[in-house]
């Protein structure tokens, strides 16, 4: 079954065609990777899918609904949550609070209920807290619950960001370079974490530069070059694809 479908999507910035008539599908329960040289349009594509940018043309269908005209907030409410290439944790908030914000779409206390501290919010707050601790246990960051999130080591900040996204209980998790800035051990851990997330039933779409990670965990890989798709296949086939090798290593003439 297809969870996300990108159909003929294009985006132009002035004279630069960042994404050009791009189409691909993401199957429910799979891990799909987007790779390509720098400037291939991967992050732009992520921004288009997650509602940060509107496409110039084309359709994006998520869970049966067209989402290309929606804001990032509406997309998140529908169950698609992203992380960022440059970590965007909430400063001055603890790890626990950061993760608790992730429970926003699964709770409902508004301004009035909050100000009046209405009884129904007490149970809700308790459940938000419990679920957040559950996620922190899962990711092995519960010991840092009371630490200001941005004070953690870089690798742990990435894990917190993934945890915050998981707290939304997304159907589709978009990971923008989850291994960027991580050392080899942390990268391996991140790979295992992503596989575990998929095993929990969350579909994953990731942009990543670390080829060994991509080849190890992905079910399918899409290769972009200058905003166009040049290949879409299983990792082993991608490694042998002549066009892909040419784009990455250059012509041998």
């Amino acid at each position: 079954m297809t969870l996300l479908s990108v159909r003929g999507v294009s985006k132009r910035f002035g004279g630069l065609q960042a994404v050009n008539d791009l189409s691909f599908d993401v199957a429910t329960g799979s891990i799909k990777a987007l790779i390509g040289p720098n400037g291939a349009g991967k992050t732009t594509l992520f921004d288009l899918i997650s509602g940060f940018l509107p496409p110039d043309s084309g359709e994006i269908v998520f869970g049966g609904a067209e989402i290309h005209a929606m804001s990032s907030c509406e997309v998140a409410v529908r169950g698609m949550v992203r992380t960022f290439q440059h970590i965007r944790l909430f400063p001055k908030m603890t790890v626990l609070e950061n993760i608790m914000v992730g429970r926003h779409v699964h709770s409902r206390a508004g301004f009035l209920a909050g100000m009046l501290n209405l009884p129904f919010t007490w149970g809700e707050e308790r459940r938000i807290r419990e679920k957040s601790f559950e996620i922190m246990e899962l990711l092995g960051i519960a010991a840092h619950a009371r630490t200001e999130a941005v004070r953690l080591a870089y690798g742990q900040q990435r894990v917190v960001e993934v945890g915050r996204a998981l707290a939304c209980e997304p159907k589709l998790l978009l990971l923008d370079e989850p291994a960027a800035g991580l050392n080899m051990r942390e990268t391996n851990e991140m790979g295992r974490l992503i596989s575990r997330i998929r095993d929990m039933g969350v579909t994953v779409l990731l942009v990543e530069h670390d080829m060994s990670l991509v080849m190890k965990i992905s079910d399918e890989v899409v290769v972009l070059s200058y905003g166009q798709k040049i290949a879409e296949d299983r990792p082993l086939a991608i490694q042998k694809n002549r066009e892909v090798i040419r784009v990455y290593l250059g012509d041998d003439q």
Partner: protein
Amino acid sequence: MARRYLPVAAFAGLIVAIQLATFFTGTAFHLTQLTMTAYYSLVIVGLCMLIGYAGQISLGHAGFFAIGGYVTAFLTTFNLKLHPGVFVSLLSKSGMLVARPDAYGGSLLTVHPWLACAAAILLTVVIAYLVGGPVLKLKGHYLAMATLGFGIIVYRMVLGTGFLGAADGISDVPGFPLPAGLAITGNSSARVSNYYLAWGLVILGMALLLNLVHSRVGRALAAVHGAEDAAGAMGIPTARYKLNTFVLSAVFASLAGVLLTHYNGGIGPSEAGVMKSVRYVAIVAIGGMANLWGALSMSLVLNYLSLRGYFGTYDDAVFGVILLLIMLFAPDGLLRRHLLSDLKRAVSRNPAEEEAS
């Protein structure tokens, strides 16, 4: 829970202690300025929520204060007897009007203060939504300038409108009747009760805002403040939350305007002035921005000193200087830990070190 409400109780204790102190030292006349301070504090804690927690600046909150004050002042002094009609008699029959003698022995028929207050708050909400919707799309300096523009518009409009008293403002505003024989009025016989009413309202407002800060919405606002795009990606409707907080703070300002106008018996255009808005922001800043207690305690001290005339003719200048100094030397406000060590570092810092870093 206790950690949230214990300071509230302590503050209530302080308010009682101040009243008792004025009673035993025979300085009860100070309570008048302290009561006015309470109403200004209401503006400031609301603004603190907007600036410190939602991260949105407003240099136009004196405008909302003035909208509240002027609407209630106009409605409770405008003599409907001189404008009879179906609408007026309908209002009169439904008990929404009150008759009272005017200063010259004649009689007045005006809108009931409660209805006037409701109208003032309603108008404030409408204006805040209309202004906030487009303006809150702006960030930083641009938002500051746009809200400044709003404040200037309100100021020039009340100054240039004849039926709002132009440069004189509106006087002879009646007291605001409350149950149990109480009233918000400047009569010296009601000085003590008004002091407690005003600070009671501030304490209530503080409790509401403290609850909000520690709620789901409070977390969401902190997230919007810290990383707006990431907050949106978590499903937080950032624009709506910012707008709601803007309107909430406008209502705090407007309610303060309504009640202080009844307490003072009138309102003048200076209440809408830009320098008032700057003063509110300065007090929030010196209190530490995202610190409701800091803003409240600074408001208590500075408004009291200002209203007692300690700053003389340099009143506005003092608040300008405060804002300048705070921004330069203590952008996190005065009331915080590490203040002394930070100050020491600032003083001992030499240019060579700065160059090296």
